[in-house]
């Protein structure tokens, strides 16, 4: 059997008495984009942080490209090719925006390329260009708007040349126009190619998002979490018409949103 790209087995995380993710298992392929949805407090962000290594699971295992990465250091996981963004953006506030991205460009994974890529500032600028905020590159990160902070998060994650990109609410707090733009950027990134010095390997993606309409357009598959367990897993149009999902997500009497 071929190694699956990302394999999550019986992943469980308990915060004191609260079980945030309860034996979650799924696997994904190299070229998939998975949408992860669920009501508030369903454990979506916890699941992503477990994969990214920011939290340690109570039990269960995660393997990435056949290697067990359960309990690895966050930076090792990033340097294997799993990049993630934060839902509540965490920029380095007192640094200029370009320096924020330069930190990612200085990671060993990002520096593994040739001399051309080692010009970190130029590469950081290309990442900002890709995210669409290169015009404010020299401003302090604390001056950015919410939407631009989201872009900064994406730029920072993309600058580590990920193979698996985990986006936590990339459209949260964006206007409809900005959302469209971001969705296009994400789709462009998934196709792969070069953006200046920035090399996209066409990463697989896991996207947490509440704006389902935009999400539907870009994902291949949707996983619905509720109370830490997987409620449904399948193609977008199948999942959103599943009565169980509608009940969990919208409560009784809700309608499909596709």
């Amino acid at each position: 059997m071929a190694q699956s790209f990302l394999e999550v087995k019986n992943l469980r995380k308990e915060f004191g008495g609260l079980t945030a993710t309860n034996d979650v298992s799924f696997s994904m392929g190299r070229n998939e984009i998975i949408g992860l949805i669920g009501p508030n407090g369903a454990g979506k962000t916890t699941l992503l942080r477990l994969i990214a290594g920011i939290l340690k699971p109570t039990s269960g295992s995660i393997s990435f490209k056949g290697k067990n990465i359960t309990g690895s250091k966050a930076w090792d996981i990033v340097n294997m090719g799993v990049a993630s963004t934060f839902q509540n953006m965490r920029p380095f506030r007192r640094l200029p925006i370009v320096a924020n991205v330069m930190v990612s460009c200085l990671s060993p994974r990002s520096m593994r390329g040739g001399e051309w890529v080692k010009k970190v500032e130029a590469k950081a600028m290309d990442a900002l260009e890709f995210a669409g905020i290169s015009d404010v590159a020299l401003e302090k990160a604390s001056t950015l708007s919410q939407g631009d902070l989201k872009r900064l998060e994406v730029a920072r994650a993309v600058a580590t040349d990920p193979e698996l990109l985990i986006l936590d609410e990339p459209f949260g707090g964006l206007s409809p126009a900005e959302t469209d733009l971001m969705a296009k950027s994400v789709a462009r990134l998934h196709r792969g190619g070069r953006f200046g010095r920035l090399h996209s390997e066409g990463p697989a993606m896991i996207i947490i998002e509440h704006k389902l309409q935009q999400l539907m357009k870009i994902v291949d598959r949707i996983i619905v979490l509720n109370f830490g367990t997987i409620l449904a897993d399948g193609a977008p149009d199948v999942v959103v018409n599943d009565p169980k999902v509608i009940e969990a997500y919208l409560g009784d009497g809700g309608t499909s949103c596709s």
Partner: protein
Amino acid sequence: MRIVVAYTRRMLKILRSEVLVLPSRVAVLVFVIAILALPLVTQDYYILRIMILTSIFAILAASWDLLSGFTGQMNFGHALFFGVSAYVTALLNLNLGFPPYFSIPLGAMGAVLTGLIVGIPCLRLKGSYLALTTLAFPIILMGIVFAIPGITGGELGLSGLTKLTGSRVNDYYVTSILMLVLGGIMWKITDSNTGIILHAIREDEVAARAAGINTTRYKLLAFCLSGFFAGIAGGLYAHFMRLAGPSTLEIGLSFQVIIWSVFGGMVSIYGPIAGVYILNPFMEVLRVILDNFPSLPEMRMFIFAALVLLTLRFMPEGLIPWLRDKVETECPRCKVRNVAFRRSCRICNAAMT
């Protein structure tokens, strides 16, 4: 001959177009020239002694800034590095007869080792917990020093080290030039890619990890670098005073370093150096003045404290960044600094508001 003229021309050109355009650069230039020219003006023993101690403490304060200002690892026991290096230097010099140019770097290496030993248990600590833990280390070491007086000299310390150099003026040049060089190196470190990572660790460690940075390694690096520079200062101190005593480990010295740095302006290498060069001679001047008024014995510390408090009240960023913001403004477009009175940016010609 023509090559000399050509190089002189180029130097003058750089001077005019790069240095004389900004008050802060002029200030640095004047400072360097003043430091180097001081012995031409006076060779007074007492003044030179104060300036030597000032330059040693300037290295110490800048090294604290590297660890606590840039990396954000609040170190309240910075005297540890100073003291360890002073003792190691003294032991090597007294027992093995190493000359200063050999014992001081080895003492600094001792401080680097100390940085590793302190840094590893401190990796998981943050904020006030880290501050309290680091505060404890010099106290522990002082206990050890008192416990084995046969090796460390106990309360009297180790005395009778070789002189740093033959004369006071040479001592002055050695310490001052080392201060300038090491300050330059520290500034260069903080200005490099490594410096950006250190900044990032201070701002948000989790986010730095999520960007693929091995924060453990860089925090230890900061501890070691800071220990190295503080160790050079400690070794210089031991050889200059010809004494390595428990006073080099005192809590008072640790706090003094913090006061100098916060007064001068943290997160800016030049701030702590300037802080030491302002406060340390100022204290000596106060001592001389107040000696004429024997009825006011404790006024010196009072004035010192009042000065620091007022500075922090009205210039929370520290004295030097405050002054710098007064005389220089940042171009809104290209973020290059300009003299405050310019109407347009010197680089991009954008209007300064």
